[in-house]
């Protein structure tokens, strides 16, 4: 792995070793903690996670053993002032995303205007013809969005990725805070940190605000659809259902009754109003998508289009996660909001464009190359840490299917210290704030999930690739 570049921006310490304002309160506390106490707490935290069952399963790992996502005890801290600017940028982007999705599935003004090439939609498996001409209840496409942000300087935040499909990780945001409060209660009396714990309540409220036309006036029935206990994010599905007081259903619990999707209860079938599904589009309806899927409900798309249920997020929102679409986000934001984007994109080369491809092929050893439909850190090339052989192999793949890739510079991501054997030591981080969208507006939970690359110098923060997490603090004014 590449050594942490000395030019990386560290969020806690300035170049001269002084503590930045965001971390002053924390550092004062930290300086007074005996080192072995913090290490002991680390072991405590691990036992705590193991006992509470906050684990995830890694696809393709040898034994399908449940693993813990490593938790680091040094919080990632954002000032109130920084957060205000970030929230404005996030809100603008999420507003644009929803307007964009509505437009894509209706008149496609953005394509007609020539700002987005039609070929990005043609043959794109994430674009669902079943959604064309249909407006989801409340006009909301992305009820829950995760916007991945990276930082390179004091005020330099950029959007690395939009997660409009089914963003995960919010349970870690909540549990990390619980863990920190349980281990260091006194710390929270010294530093005022904004609450995140009412996320599930806000999620429930936001889902209930998008009732389908068929819903009766009674209390809305919300259910979380999970692929089941072997899914890597099952803990989160159960956690959210539990916290919202919603049923946690699987495909086998559901069937269509009187034009509604109904779940098999101990007293018979009960219709569901809003389905927060954590099952991908492809598996949602064997009649419309993958016919072999056991995870969804046959015919749910027909029920949906007829107004019998709300599906959150709406099917077909995944198109917004496409990395080729991502490269157009600045234009998209401007087209729908009439404003310049507050949060910039990471500079991106579209390999489908001959000039860009040429540049990328010549500079592979400096770039990060990603598949346009990929996610989770799989199928990508990180030039600076790859061998010549790996780069050559990737170049061949890239040349064969250039439209399948985009490239980005290897960013000098900001660092936040983790607690290592010898004390604080810097590691690269990103941030995924969670955003709720309802007809009433956009609601951003202060903070989000900070992912941290635990290996020295590594830029890969994905939990499936050995990344860890931190509690993320937004300071109160």
């Amino acid at each position, binding site marked *: 792995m590449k050594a942490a570049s000395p030019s990386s921006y560290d969020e806690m310490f300035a170049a001269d070793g002084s503590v930045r304002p965001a971390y002053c309160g924390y550092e004062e506390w930290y300086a007074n903690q005996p080192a072995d106490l913090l290490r002991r707490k680390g072991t405590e935290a691990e036992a705590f996670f*193991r*006992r*509470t*069952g906050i684990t995830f399963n890694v696809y393709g790992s040898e034994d399908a053993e449940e693993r813990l996502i490593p938790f680091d005890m040094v919080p990632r801290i954002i000032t109130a002032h920084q957060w205000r600017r970030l929230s404005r940028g996030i809100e603008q982007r999420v507003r644009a995303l929803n307007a964009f999705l509505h437009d894509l599935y209706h008149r496609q003004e953005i394509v007609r205007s020539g700002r987005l090439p039609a070929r990005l939609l043609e043959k794109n498996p994430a674009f669902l013809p079943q959604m064309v001409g249909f407006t989801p209840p409340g006009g909301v496409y992305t009820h829950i969005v995760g916007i991945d942000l990276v930082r390179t300087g004091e005020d330099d935040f950029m959007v690395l990725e939009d997660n409009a499909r089914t963003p995960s990780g919010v349970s870690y945001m909540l549990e990390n805070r619980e863990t920190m409060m349980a281990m260091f209660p006194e710390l929270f009396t010294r530093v005022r940190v904004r609450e995140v714990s009412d996320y599930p309540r806000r999620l429930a409220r936001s889902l209930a605000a998008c009732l389908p036309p068929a819903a009766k006036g009674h209390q809305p029935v919300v259910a*979380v659809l999970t692929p089941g*206990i072997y899914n890597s994010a*099952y803990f989160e599905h*159960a*956690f959210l*259902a*539990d916290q919202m007081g*919603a*049923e*946690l*259903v*699987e495909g*086998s*619990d559901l069937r269509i009754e009187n034009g509604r999707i109904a*779940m*098999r*209860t*101990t*007293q*018979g079938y009960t219709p569901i109003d809003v389905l927060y599904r954590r099952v991908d589009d492809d598996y949602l309806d064997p009649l419309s998508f993958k016919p072999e899927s056991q995870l969804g409900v046959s015919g749910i798309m027909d029920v949906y289009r007829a107004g019998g249920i709300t599906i959150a997020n709406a099917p077909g929102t995944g198109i917004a996660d496409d990395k080729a679409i991502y490269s157009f986000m600045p234009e998209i934001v401007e087209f729908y909001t009439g404003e310049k984007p507050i949060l910039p994109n990471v500079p991106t080369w579209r390999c489908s464009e001959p000039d860009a491809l040429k540049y990328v092929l010549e500079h592979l050893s400096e770039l990060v190359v990603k598949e346009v439909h990929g996610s989770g850190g799989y199928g990508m090339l990180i030039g600076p840490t790859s061998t010549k052989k790996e780069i050559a192999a990737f170049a061949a793949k890239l040349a064969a299917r250039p439209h399948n890739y985009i490239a980005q510079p290897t960013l000098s991501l900001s660092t936040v210290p983790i607690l290592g054997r010898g004390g604080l030591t810097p590691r690269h981080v990103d941030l995924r704030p969670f955003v709720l969208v309802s007809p009433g507006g956009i609601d951003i939970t202060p903070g989000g999930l900070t992912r941290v690359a635990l290996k020295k110098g590594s830029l890969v923060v994905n939990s499936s690739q050995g990344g860890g997490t931190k509690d993320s603090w937004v300071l109160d004014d």
Partner: protein
Amino acid sequence: MLGRSANGIFWLFRNLERAENTARLIEAGFRMALTRDARDASDEWRSVIVTLGLRALYETKFGTDYAGPNVINFILRDKDNPGNVLAMCELARTNARMVRAGITREVWESVNDSWLRMRELLARPVAETRLGAVLDTLRRQSTQVRGAMEGTMLRNEIYNFARIGSFIERADNTARILDVKYYVLLPSISYVGSSLDNVQWENVLRSLAGERAYRWLNAGRMEARGIAEFLILDSRFPRSLAFCYGKLRSNLAHLAREYGCETEAHAILQEADCDLHTITIDAIFEQGLHEYIAKFISRNTRLANQIQYDYRFID
């Protein structure tokens, strides 16, 4: 609640109950084996295996050699026995994960903790020196889950299905012990009053954690009929058939109130419950203890199946 969740919670508690009862059975067997010569000890272990319904499976692997360490490990952790105690704990935990949204954090954590501990304790073969510690942990863990349940769970349908699972299983376990040991309790057996009898009787009571309660109620006097009456009809003793059915009755009644209707299961329960309330121990011995228990077990199974059907556990 979902039918699938009712099924999950029902089996979660059946498995926990079964694991706990199995621990008691091994404990009683072990104690008995310690006080007997090798042949009698081996008879005792065989009866433990028979009570658990594992005879065919066991003999496929070990033949008729009922050596203590083989029996203990076969019951606790042997992969050739799919119903081993570790598998029960794991099944309980899988069910708990499945119904995670329906149980409190405390209940989930104690089930999870239980599994983590048992997995560690049963990672290697259990020598007789370690048996006490393993069984002790197993019992403690059940107590902890039960405590978390009592202290934190809402008294609603979820709780009812949990309790129904526990008591169906407990009634079945008590009845199976009686079924295997019924001859010990028959008054016709000749060595009445002998010390052998006393030991056998005490062993039956011990397998059901009832030796202290029985002695306390009877000022220390042991007698076959009294013991049978205690284990079947005494509704004060928490592992008696009458006690289990009392709990099944109140939990099923709760469901009927909450759902506004009774089901087929209520009819089966009523029949069984009525029987336990009106019959005397003399009448049971008259119709044959063995026959009575066999009938009880089959009706208990019928009740469990009917509950699963009536409340749509599966499609």
